[in-house]
């Protein structure tokens, strides 16, 4: 981490004792949120890749490949799938999807996950196997943001424009397709005419004049045909280029819609729960329940006002890093974005069961301002978690985010 010490004297310092904190001061509200499948969070590991099959065949293939040749529980395997989306839904319209009843939401948004890990403290001891199962769903899914609605309207307008031009293309194409034949016909008539004209001019055969005149008329007709086919060909090329451009616009709008789909406006409520089992030494007979986890994540977003409020409740039992204690984490963050400037306030509370000394809360207000070239200024102020000595340090930082990670102007004390 780069430290710009010259600025340190100008800025408020981060103050805390030399004792290490009982609760990581890096614990933020985002750390409590589910960033992947809940089954993976229950194991407290990061899988290299989460398998998300969306067909029955892919699901079976994933499960078979996970077991491997030895049939043992794999290390670092994670799968999440939503049964509803394993099959096709030719009658499900986008309108039905966004105006779903509670029962429909449970079908659309419920996903099940499984994760496994193996670990051993000694090479000589068979590795323990941990397996977790979890489910999550959206009880409320909000509604499409105003930007997304506008994007979808633009998509529909472009689609109608596309169809109108496509229809014209369909009617013009047959005329353009006869260009080659028309050119050959013209060529034949030109050659014949040339021969006939020469004969009429140099010879005495007067009867050839009628034939020449007929050929002349056919040549003129062929010329007109070629001209029409060429014009149609130009029109086809012009329309195809327009359609290609429209397809490009549609693709960009579609990608934008897919991104907006993940950030609905209004009230959303996600519920997740799961359990973890431990197989000591990897043996089936030595199985025991190893903990549960429950996550509740309500969120309210009003994108036109740039306001977002998110709350998190997380309950975990037998947490490794807390000496197998049970823990209840609560958090809430309200944020307001006004163009280049953003202001947010965050509060996180950790309750460790039967150990008040390790229960504490943290709050912070964060201000950030976007500078040119993807650089932003970040300042925060608040109160950190209570330390072992009973003190609650002040958090006061000022830093610059270079877009590749934060560079702190004031170093974090240790």
């Amino acid at each position, binding site marked *: 981490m780069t430290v710009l010490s010259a600025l340190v004297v100008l800025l408020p310092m981060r103050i805390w004792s030399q004792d290490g904190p009982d609760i990581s001061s890096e614990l933020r509200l985002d750390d409590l949120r589910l960033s992947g499948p809940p089954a993976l969070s229950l194991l407290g590991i990061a899988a290299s890749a989460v398998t*998300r099959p969306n067909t029955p065949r892919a699901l079976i293939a994933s499960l078979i490949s996970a077991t491997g040749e030895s049939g043992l529980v794999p290390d670092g395997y994670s799968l999440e799938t939503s049964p509803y989306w394993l099959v096709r839904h030719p009658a499900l*319209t986008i309108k039905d999807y966004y105006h779903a009843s509670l029962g429909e939401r449970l079908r659309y948004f419920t996903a099940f996950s499984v994760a496994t890990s193996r670990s051993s403290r000694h090479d000589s001891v068979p590795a323990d196997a941990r397996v977790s199962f979890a489910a999550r769903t959206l009880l409320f899914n909000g509604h499409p943001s105003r930007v997304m609605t506008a994007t979808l309207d633009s998509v529909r307008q472009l*689609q109608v424009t596309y*169809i109108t031009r496509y229809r014209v293309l369909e009617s013009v194409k047959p005329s353009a397709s006869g260009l080659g034949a028309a050119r050959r016909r013209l060529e034949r008539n030109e050659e014949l005419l040339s021969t006939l004209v020469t004969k009429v001019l140099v010879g005495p055969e007067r009867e050839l004049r009628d034939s020449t005149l007929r050929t002349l008329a056919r040549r003129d007709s062929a010329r007109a045909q070629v001209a029409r086919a060429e014009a149609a060909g130009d029109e086809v090329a012009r329309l195809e280029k327009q359609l290609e451009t429209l397809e490009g616009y*549609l*693709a960009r709008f579609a990608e934008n819609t897919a991104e907006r789909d993940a950030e609905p406006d209004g009230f959303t409520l996600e519920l997740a729960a799961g359990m973890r089992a431990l197989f000591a030494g990897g043996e089936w007979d030595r199985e025991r329940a190893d903990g549960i986890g429950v996550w509740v994540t309500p969120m309210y977003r009003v994108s036109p006002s740039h306001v977002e409020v998110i709350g998190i409740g997380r309950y975990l039992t037998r947490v490794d890093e807390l000496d197998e204690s049970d823990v209840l984490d609560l958090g809430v963050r309200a944020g307001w974005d006004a163009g280049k400037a953003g202001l947010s306030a965050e509060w996180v509370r950790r309750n460790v069961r039967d150990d008040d000394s390790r229960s504490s809360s943290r709050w912070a207000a964060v201000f950030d301002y976007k500078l040119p070239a993807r650089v932003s200024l970040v300042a925060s102020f608040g109160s950190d978690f209570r330390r072992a000595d009973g003190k609650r340090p002040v958090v006061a930082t000022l830093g610059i985010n270079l877009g590749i990670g934060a560079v702190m102007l004031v170093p974090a004390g240790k």
Partner: protein
Amino acid sequence: MARKPVLHEQDYEVSDRAIRLTVVVGERQVGSSVVFLDDDAVANGDVEDLPLGDGDRLDGKILTIYTLVTDIRRDVDDMAVTWILGGGRHRVSATATGTPAKKFGSQMFKGIFHFVSP
């Protein structure tokens, strides 16, 4: 170059009642339609319970529906269009499925219905 449409073509037996058309764009994708009766465009956009006219006046005409579907789903690109015609001798529901050539691409669906007397 524009891809070939996914084509569905069939006859539809009319009666003396009003014929109505609904186009369903499924698979949670977004699509718009333009409806032609012979060479006349009669509607565009979302088509739901669109009155086309009395069956006896539609006899011999051709109904052509162009529906462009755009893939807006990140994980899957399945597409489906269902044409539902009612008011004739029988209610007809025909579904065609397809996929775009590339991610977030679009695919044209074309339904052609020949109105015929029973």
